[in-house]
C-alpha cells in the first residue's frame, strides 16, 4: 500500500526527516509515536505532498506508483486521505458543501453526520469557531465521506473528551473496515484479516486512541528517524512507564536502533 524509502525531508529550512524507510501493507494499521518535534507530522505532510515540506532524498510509493512529486489532489484521487491536527477555517464554505464535494457516491452525508453528532454543524462555516473535539469529528466526517484506502490521522484524539474518544475510535474503525467484519462460523480470523483492504497510519502522542482502534505495528520516531518498531501496545506501555527520554536513551545505545 505505502512504501517509503530512505526519505529525507526539509521543513522551515532544516532537515526534519533524516532517512525513514517504512512499509504499510494493505489492511495494516500502523502507529507513530514520538516526542514533540520528532518529525511525525512532517512525515504525514510529506506523504500528502503539502507545500513547505521539501523532499531532498528518497521516494514515496503508493500502491506501487511513485507519488513523491504528485500534487496533493492527485494523491487523494489515488486513495490517500488525511485528518489534520489543526485544520484551517474557511468562512463562507459550509461543512455540508465540502462533504458533498468530496464524498464517494455510496456515502450519505446526513447518515454520517448523525453518527458523528454533527447534524447542526453541516450548515456552519467550515471549522469556524469549532472546538477541539468538533474539529476532529468534522475531519473524520470528511474522511469517511472520501473513504480513502490509506488514512493518515494526525493526533485524532487531541483535545477530545473521553466520551468523544469512544465515538472517534468507533468511526475510525468503520473507516478502516475493522468494525463491520465479523468472523463467520466457517472462517478463520486470518481469513477475516486478509479481507481488510484499508490501511492506516496514525500519529498519537498520548497513545489513547490505541484503546479503541486496533493497530498492527508501532514505530517510535526520534529526531527524524525511526528508532524502534514493534508491537504497538508494548511500545506504548513502555513509553507510558518510562517516557520518551528512555526511547531517546535507548536509541543512542550501540545496537539500540531497531528491535
Amino acid at each position, binding site marked *: 500500500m505505502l512504501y517509503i524509502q530512505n526519505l529525507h525531508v526539509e521543513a522551515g529550512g532544516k532537515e526534519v526527516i533524516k532517512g525513514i524507510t517504512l512499509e504499510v501493507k494493505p489492511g495494516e494499521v500502523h502507529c507513530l509515536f514520538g516526542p514533540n518535534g520528532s518529525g511525525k507530522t512532517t512525515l504525514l505532510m510529506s506523504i*500528502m505532498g*503539502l*507545500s*513547505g515540506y521539501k523532499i531532498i532524498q528518497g521516494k514515496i510509493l503508493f500502491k506501487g506508483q511513485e507519488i513523491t512529486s504528485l*500534487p*496533493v*489532489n492527485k494523491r*487523494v*484521487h489515488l486513495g490517500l*486521505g*488525511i485528518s*489534520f491536527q489543526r*485544520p*484551517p477555517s*474557511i*468562512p*463562507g*464554505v459550509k461543512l455540508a*458543501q*465540502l462533504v458533498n*464535494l*468530496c464524498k464517494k457516491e455510496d456515502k450519505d452525508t446526513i447518515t454520517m453526520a448523525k453518527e458523528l453528532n454533527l447534524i447542526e454543524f453541516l450548515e456552519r*462555516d*467550515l471549522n469556524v469557531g469549532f472546538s477541539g473535539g468538533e474539529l476532529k469529528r468534522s475531519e473524520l466526517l*470528511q474522511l469517511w465521506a*472520501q473513504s480513502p484506502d490509506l488514512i493518515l490521522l494526525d493526533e485524532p484524539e487531541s483535545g477530545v473528551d473521553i466520551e468523544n474518544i469512544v465515538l472517534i475510535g468507533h468511526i475510525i474503525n468503520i473507516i478502516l473496515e475493522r468494525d463491520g467484519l465479523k468472523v463467520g462460523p466457517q472462517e478463520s480470523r486470518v481469513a477475516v484479516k486478509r479481507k481488510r483492504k484499508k490501511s492506516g497510519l496514525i500519529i498519537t502522542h498520548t497513545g489513547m486512541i490505541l484503546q479503541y482502534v486496533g493497530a498492527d505495528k508501532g514505530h517510535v520516531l526520534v529526531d527524524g528517524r525511526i528508532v524502534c518498531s514493534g508491537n504497538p501496545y508494548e511500545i506504548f506501555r513502555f513509553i507510558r512507564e518510562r517516557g520518551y527520554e528512555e526511547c531517546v536513551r535507548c536509541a543512542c545505545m550501540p545496537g539500540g536502533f531497531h528491535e
Partner: protein
Amino acid sequence: MNKLKKIAEKAKKAIKKKAPYGQDININEFEQEVKNLPDSTLHQLSEQEQKTLLETGIELRGGERGGSFFQVDHSVIHYEVAQEGVEILSIEEAMAKYDWLINYWWSALSPDTDKYTAYVALHQKHGYFVRVLPGVKTFFPLQACLFMSQENITQPIHNIIICEEGSELNLITGCAASHRVRTGLHLGISEFFIKKGATCTFTMIHNWAEEMAIRPRTGIIIEEDATFVSNYILLKKVANLQTFPIAYLKKNAKAEFNTILFAPKGAYLDTGTRVFLKEEGAKAEVVSRSITAGGTVIARGHLIGEASGIKAHLECKGLILGERGVIHAIPELEGHVGGVEMSHEAAVGRIAKEQIEYLMARGLSESEATSLIVKGFLRVDIKGLPEELKIELDKVIEATEKDMM
C-alpha cells in the same frame, strides 16, 4: 413650481463642482441625447442582452416578481405591477399624479452635492417611482431595470422610493449595458423614504460595460423603528465607479449595508457608505467584501453617532488575488456624544496556501479550491435577506466566477 426653480438654480451653480471622491469625469465627452429610440418591447433584446439582465437578477418574463420597471437609455419602455397597494410609475407620471411628491423631490439629497447631481437635476431622463402603501407587504420582490444600449451616451435618471408606515418592500434593481456598448456614463439619483416601522430591502446588481463610468447618488431617510437593508453587488468589470450613499437614521431605526465588489485589471472602484445615526437606539451595520485581480478598490465607511444609545459596526474585508491590485480600506467612526457604541474591523490579505491545500487534500484541484474559497469569502451572511434573493445572489456569483479566476 417655485421649488423646481430653486432646484434648477442650485444645480446650475454646482454644474462644475467636482465630487470629493473618485476621478473627475468630463460629462461633455458623452452624448446628452440619444440618436435612436430603443425598440418598444423587451422581446427585441438579443439573447446576449437578455442573459446580461438575468445576471442582474432581472426576470424578463416577470415570473416571481410583484412588479417591474424597465428603462432603456432615455425611454421608459415598460412597467407593470401585480399587487394591490404597490405602485410603480415613471417618475414624471408620478409627479403629475401626486402634487405632494414635489415635497420629496431632492429632499434626501441636495442637487448641488456635486456636478453629477447637478447634471441630473438639469437634464434628467426619467427614472422610477416605487411606493408601497401603509401596512402593505410585497409578496414577490419588485424589479427595476436600467439598461444602456447605445454607445457613449449619458443616462441621467432620478428614482424615488417610498415605503409608507408599516409597509414592507423588497426591490431588486438591475443595472446593465448591452454587450455592444463599450463606454457611457450612468448617473442615477435615488431617494429613499422609509417611514415609521417600514422595512425596505434594496438589492442592486450592476453589470455594466467595461469602459463605463458610473456615478450613483443615493440619499436614504429611515424613520422611527424602520429598517433599511441594502445589498450592492458589482462583479463585472466597469472602468470607473464612485458611489457613497448617505443614510439618516431616526429613533430605533436600523440600517444594514452589504457591498460585494470585484475589481479586475483596469477597474477603479471607489465605494462606501455614510450613515448618520441621529437619534437614540439607531443601529447600523456596514459590511464590505472586495476582491481585486489587478484593479483598485477603495472601500470607505463613515459612521457618525449623534445620539447616545446608538450602535454601529463597520467591517471591510479585502482579498487580493494574484500579484497586483489595490484594496484601500478607509473605515471612519465619529462619536459626537457619550453612550455611543461604535466599532470597526478591516482586513486585507490573500488566500492562505494552507486553505487551498486543505481543500486539495479533500480531492479538489487548486483552481476548484481557490474558487470555493473566493465564493465563500463573497458569501456574506446577510441577515434578513429572503431566501429567493440569496439564491439570486449565489447565481450572480456563480455566473461571474469564471471572470474572476
